[in-house]
């Protein structure tokens, strides 16, 4: 028996172990789960270690002289102060840095690529459809226009959903429901494909029942 055969058997047994969970929680699943947690936690630690600590920090600072990265190392070291009860509060500094950076960066990213680009596209697409003259296209664009505006009204917080406003918001929820339905419908396919991949592995690579 060569290594690859052992590997395939191992993979097949682990596959079956995880699958057994859909019947119910059991000893076999618990073992697979424990293996999974241990192995994957180790995998990511090692990946981070070589990719971030070694390649970015060590190579970057020592070999490439990018001393600006020292700041990251200092903040990282502060994180470890958590281990020492008395000065544990210093760990809040790197945390504050991360939250501040995330807030600042994401605010701009979301604003330009989500809000502005989407508003631009909505206006521009509708206009193109008007001048294009294709009725099918035009109806589609008007639906987008209606859906985007009513959808935004649904998200409007400072007005009660009553009367006309409530009616419009209701139309907005219908559009959201279509969006959810569409995502769901599109997704079912991919989920089936995933299981397909595993079943194919069991039938072909492991049991060799199918060519």
């Amino acid at each position, binding site marked *: 028996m060569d290594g690859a055969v052992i*590997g395939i058997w191992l*993979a097949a047994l*682990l*596959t079956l172990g*995880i*699958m057994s969970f859909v019947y119910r929680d059991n000893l076999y699943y*618990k073992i697979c789960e424990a*293996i*999974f*947690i*241990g192995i994957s*936690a*180790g995998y990511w*630690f*090692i990946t981070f*270690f*070589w990719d*971030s600590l070694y390649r970015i920090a060590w190579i970057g600072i020592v070999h490439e002289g990018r001393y600006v990265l020292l700041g*990251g190392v200092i*903040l*990282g070291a502060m994180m*470890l102060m958590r281990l020492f009860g008395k000065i544990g509060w210093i760990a*809040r500094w*790197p945390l504050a*840095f*991360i*939250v*501040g*950076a995330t*807030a*600042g*960066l994401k*605010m*701009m990213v979301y604003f330009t690529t*989500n809000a502005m680009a989407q508003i631009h*596209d*909505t206006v521009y697409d509708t206009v193109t459809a008007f001048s294009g003259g294709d009725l*099918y296209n035009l109806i589609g664009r008007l639906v*987008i*226009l*209606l*859906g985007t505006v009513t*959808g*935004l009204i649904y998200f409007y917080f400072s007005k009660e959903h009553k009367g006309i406003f409530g009616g419009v918001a209701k139309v*907005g929820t*219908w559009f959201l*429901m*279509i*969006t*959810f*339905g*569409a995502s*769901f*419908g*599109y997704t079912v396919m991919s*989920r089936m494909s*995933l*299981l397909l*991949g*595993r079943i194919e592995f069991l039938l072909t690579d492991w049991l060799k029942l199918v060519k």
Partner: protein
Amino acid sequence: MKHQIPMLILSAVGTLLVVSVFVPSAQHWGEDATLYFDIIAVFAFFLGGGNLIRVHTEKVSHKSAGWIYSVVTLLGFGIMLVTGLFKIGNPNGIAGDLSKSGSYFQLLFQYVMSPLNSTMYALLAFYVASASYRAFRAKNTEATILLVAAFVILLGRTALGVLLTNWIPAQLSVLQIPNLAIWIMNAPNLAGQRAIMIGISLGVISMSLRLLLGIERTYLGGDS
């Protein structure tokens, strides 16, 4: 002191990064901040990994329920650390690429972690089916709309949709299910997506401002 300094760091870093977007020579600050984040995350992992080891060793030493699984977890973690740190079996030795095929680390990934990963993901097929059976029902207007949209797309993205509506003449081809599915994706679905996306970006802006102005600060902890 314990509160003002983190607050100051937060506001300063956030504001600077917002401003840096507009200044060409500072536009790379965002990337640097991400590198900082990566480095901090590795250091933090010593805390997380430490927590993992502590929780499971405690379970083993107290022989509490299911301690045997903790032994398995610790073993898995340890094996991965040893094979990965020393790059055991790597054809290029310690200087080799981590994902080099042939190394023990890579073998463990390929034959243990990868099948576990794919199978756990694949379980979704079962859950999607049971969710469809139980939850997608025309209970009210909203649920009905969701159901119909899902149904048309589902049919439209499979060969079944082609089979069912191939008889519809070319003039009315818009009504063929695959085309209807495309229309739903391109029009009402897009509208909903856009409303959600614009809403989210405004939500992010107002939350970021709450964070930068120090109004929202629960995650920075108490006075202990």
